């Protein structure tokens, strides 16, 4: 098989995940996009491990071992991430990333109500 096929698919999936992380507004949808990016990296690891295990005699199968570790860490990450999102939702009543602007620079308490309303109008338009 041409090595460019899995590599190109992995690049496209990663960029899809990048778009989702940047463009989504719900925190759980952002977590889904992060999962897409992690899976793209996993596909790259598996493809290159299969390629290298054919060319080299002695191989540690490091790509597949690292893929398993990545999958386990992604499972841990999604558990912690959902716990954080649920805690934020309980405290704030929303899981909307654009409204969680407490640590953002350059806005006082006066513009706090205006900016999300403007963004909402922009999104509905």
């Amino acid at each position, binding site marked *: 098989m041409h090595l460019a096929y899995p590599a190109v698919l992995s690049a496209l999936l990663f960029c899809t995940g990048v778009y989702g992380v940047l463009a989504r507004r719900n925190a759980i949808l952002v977590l889904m996009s992060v999962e897409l990016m992690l899976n793209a990296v996993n596909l790259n690891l598996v493809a290159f491990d*299969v390629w290298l295990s054919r060319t080299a005699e002695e191989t540690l199968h490091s790509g597949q071992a690292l893929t398993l570790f990545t999958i386990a860490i992604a499972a841990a990450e999604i558990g912690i991430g959902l716990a954080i999102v649920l805690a934020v939702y309980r405290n704030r009543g929303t899981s909307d990333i654009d409204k969680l602007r407490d640590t953002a620079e350059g806005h006082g308490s006066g513009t706090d109500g205006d900016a999300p309303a403007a963004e909402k109008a922009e999104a509905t338009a």
Partner: protein
Amino acid sequence: MTYALATAVTAHPGPSGVPLAAAAHGFLSPTGVEIAFLLVGLLTFGAALVTVTTRQLVHAALWLVVALGGLAVEYLLLTAEFIAWVQVLIYVGSVVVLLLFGLMLTRAPIGRSPDADSGNRWAALAVAVAAAAALVWVVVDAFRTTWIDLDGPAAGSTEVTGASLFQHWVLPFEALSVLLLAALVGAIVLSRKARAEKSSPPVNSRASAGGSPVVPESRNHPSGGHRPTEQEGAR
């Protein structure tokens, strides 16, 4: 001029090794594995696109199942069967179910939600398309003459993976189990801490800020209604 440029472009890949590889592998006659990989890859990419663009939040999780299952099929085509089944078990089995739980617990709207996408969608699209173009160009240019030999014994059968995992990667494996334990304890601590902090007055609550019209009133009600019982539970 343009004709000369076009001939230069088309003639350029000639001397750089493609005919040799084509003689060995058949560049214009893809094998069945390649065709299957391409079709499943298109399905996976399409499902991923729908996942990040749909406005129905539950549908996004369900399309994510299609994308992750397609990736499992790609692992099978790459002869990494153990990883494929781990992918099915962990991603399709537990991660998506966790995401669906999260969507339900945060009262995600069923049906089309108009504000699923942020206002900076076009900037995100520009960044993603630029990154995709750059990555695909670099990857295709780098691995144009590289082929994976899929014949012979499977590179990722359970025996091979288990042997390499428990011969060479035992210490990271054990460290990973400690990390999973830490994540488990951390998730429990996070969810309990959020409940205990409810008894103290909310420091930065949206309900007391000026921007409360942004938050729908129905979303604030459950947290307010649960407060007395949760106070009793915390003490």
